[in-house]
């Protein structure tokens, strides 16, 4: 059960690095794992063998952080001790970092019968993590277009996953979103147990796919999929007229979803464990999906329904997903956007609940955002026409945002009704200006990409308005 000699050397190097980083006051990096992995690539697998209850992996483009938090809380409520990669990244090196931190210098994890691994995994790194950890359960939330400059196309990612699934232990359970055709189709080619979850509440269906839909082709024969309902992006109820393949009927389904504005939603579920009701304190249909996915996973692990309900009902907003706080007497609403579908979802929630927005938009093009900013042209910015008091474009690519706003027609209107546009690339300047223009007691909305969100959050943390993300 303990690591090999090479593993112990790698572990020592990883622990040493972590200690140095901590001493210099730096948390939340995956450098220890990276260094340990360079020395001994199999270290994560060797350490993970010490996890008594095995590991589960959570992946997908949107919602994996929120789902992971709910699952971790549910398992804790059930008396288990989840080991999770909150610190570090969701690549293999981040998971290695988590294991290095938890292990003793002899490579032993806490010898607890309650220990269970719960790891959030980046889509592109899923095959490597599967090979390293041989998980007992795998949750896949969805597969959207995101950072294509790293991972090419969604169907290519899906094909890499399908190949990796052939190497899963036979008993590994797959929890799959039935409403995402690319994800659902993955269940067709495995002999593993599969639990499908999905949304049956037809009130949320639309007849047409939104512009940001990525996949509307049949994954089996590449013909057009017909959607009888479309929830958001390419999630919905679909069937292929050409080959007959269709959405699998979910065994765990949400038949009634009440969305209560920015406050959250109430979900009624039909499950193999009986009917359940969940209160989700996070807004929007995508958070309802996150709760359904987390509940499906927790029930499958044998967590009692009341522990699941409590965990879902208590979840704090994951990093930057529509956080609300007070700043200099103004209400601030902070939202993270990662790709066209998450941007459209955020805009839709905001517009359903607010008549006009005072808006700071921040776009960066660092590696963790997307170096290619073309994706903002696939966002339905046009929805904001007539709904902005004013807008400030910020971030490294503020000028690109300004141009997108101009071509969306957002800046047009009668002379007295044209929203003013300012371009202020420096984030701090944009936020200060936004606060100055927002009357006390009123609301300022900030929408930002990943690294812009990090920078803003750090600033708000320093000023004491928010807790640091990795302590939260």
């Amino acid at each position: 059960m303990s690591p090999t000699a090479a593993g112990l050397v790698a572990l020592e190097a990883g622990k040493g690095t972590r200690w140095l980083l901590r001493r210099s006051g730096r948390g939340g990096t995956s450098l220890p794992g990276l260094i340990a992995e360079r020395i001994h690539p199999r270290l994560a697998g060797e350490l993970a063998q010490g996890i008594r209850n095995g590991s589960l992996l959570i992946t997908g483009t949107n919602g994996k952080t929120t789902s992971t938090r709910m699952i971790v809380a549910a398992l804790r409520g059930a008396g288990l001790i989840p080991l999770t990669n909150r610190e570090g990244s969701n690549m293999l090196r981040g998971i290695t970092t988590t294991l290095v931190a938890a292990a003793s210098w002899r490579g032993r994890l806490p010898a607890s019968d309650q220990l269970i691994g719960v790891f959030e995994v980046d889509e592109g790194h899923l095959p490597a993590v599967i090979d390293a950890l041989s998980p007992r359960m795998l949750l896949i939330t969805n597969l959207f277009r995101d950072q294509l400059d790293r991972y090419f196309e969604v169907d290519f990612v899906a094909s890499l996953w399908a190949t990796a699934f052939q190497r899963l232990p036979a008993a590994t359970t797959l929890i799959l979103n039935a409403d995402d055709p690319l994800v659902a189709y993955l269940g067709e080619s495995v002999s593993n147990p599969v639990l499908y979850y999905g949304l049956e509440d037809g009130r949320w269906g639309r007849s047409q796919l939104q512009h940001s839909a990525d996949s509307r082709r049949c994954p089996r024969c590449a013909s057009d999929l017909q959607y009888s309902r479309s929830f958001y992006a390419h999630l919905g109820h679909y069937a292929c007229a050409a080959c007959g393949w269709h959405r699998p009927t979910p065994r765990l389904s949400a038949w009634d979803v009440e969305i209560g504005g920015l406050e959250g939603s109430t979900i009624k579920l039909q499950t193999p464990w009986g009917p359940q009701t969940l209160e989700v304190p996070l807004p929007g249909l995508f958070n309802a999906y996150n709760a359904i996915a987390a509940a499906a996973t927790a029930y499958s692990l044998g967590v009692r329904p009341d522990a699941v309900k409590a965990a879902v009902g208590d979840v704090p907003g994951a990093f930057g997903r529509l956080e609300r706080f007070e700043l200099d007497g103004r209400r601030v609403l902070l939202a993270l956007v990662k790709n066209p579908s998450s941007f459209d979802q955020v805009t839709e929630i905001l517009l359903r609940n607010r008549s006009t927005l005072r808006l700071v938009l921040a776009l960066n093009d660092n590696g963790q955002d997307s170096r290619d900013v073309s994706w903002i042209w696939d966002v339905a910015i046009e929805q904001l026409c007539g709904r902005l008091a004013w807008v400030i474009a910020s971030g490294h690519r503020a000028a690109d945002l300004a141009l997108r706003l101009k071509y969306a027609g957002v800046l047009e209107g009668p002379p007295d009704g044209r929203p003013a546009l300012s371009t202020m690339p420096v984030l701090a300047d944009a936020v200060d200006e936004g606060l100055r223009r927002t009357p006390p007691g009123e609301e300022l909305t900030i929408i930002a990409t990943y690294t812009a969100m990090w920078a803003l959050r750090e600033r708000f943390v320093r000023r004491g308005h928010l807790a640091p993300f990795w302590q939260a």
Partner: protein
Amino acid sequence: MSAPHASAAGVVTLTIGYLYPSVLSQYGDWGNVRCLQQRCHWRGIDVEILPLEVGTAIEASAVDFFFMGGGADSQQRLIARDLVMAKGDAIREAIDAGSVALLICAGYQMWGRRYRPFRGDDLEGLGIFDAETIHWAAEEKVTIRDITSAGRGRMVGNVVVEWEGTTLVGFENHGGRTYLGAGARPLGRVVVGAGNNGKDHTEGAIVRHAYGTYLHGPLLPKNPALADHLIRLALQRRYGEVPFPPLDDGLEGQAREVALHLHR
């Protein structure tokens, strides 16, 4: 802004044939069509957009401007047969008669003679450009494991191209390497980035009024000189000289300025 005078035929209308919008809509390429639409609208020129999907017939004389965007290999395969077999003759007829075309990435590859993807059979192209494209991994005969290690040979990054005494800015993201024959003239010379193939410093191709390029971004909003050049070419064919007032391109200029100073 003053509207241009109505031509003899009445209102000035630009008809854009948008090839396969539901299949090829990656990397914001739709923004090029949005840009054409708005720059015409701000000048009082009407724009009509004809979606040309698989199975849609084309009336060659009706289309002033063809647009085709980028997509994955699998998506290219879906439309290849329809493009070459069903629409090829009408498109060639229109281009010979002076129609304008802007083809991005996959669109550009498919207007060449042939595309050899990483996996699967070669795809026959329209052959309007004397150009052939081969996926880098097919050219170097690598395995699937190499290709997943961060897309080693893929050409990804910011691009600056010399074009007609000025510059074009954009973002490229392609696995295919395109080689031009004697019958095609490059759109421009690469200053930053890979361009057609990362070897000969050429980027894109021009034949008559058909422009092929690898530049996403999308291309036209940050390169308004090219956008206006293409609109004027398309209008001249049907209306001769049309009043074409300049627009305020302040925001476009700022975005270009940022793009010119980005790292690769």
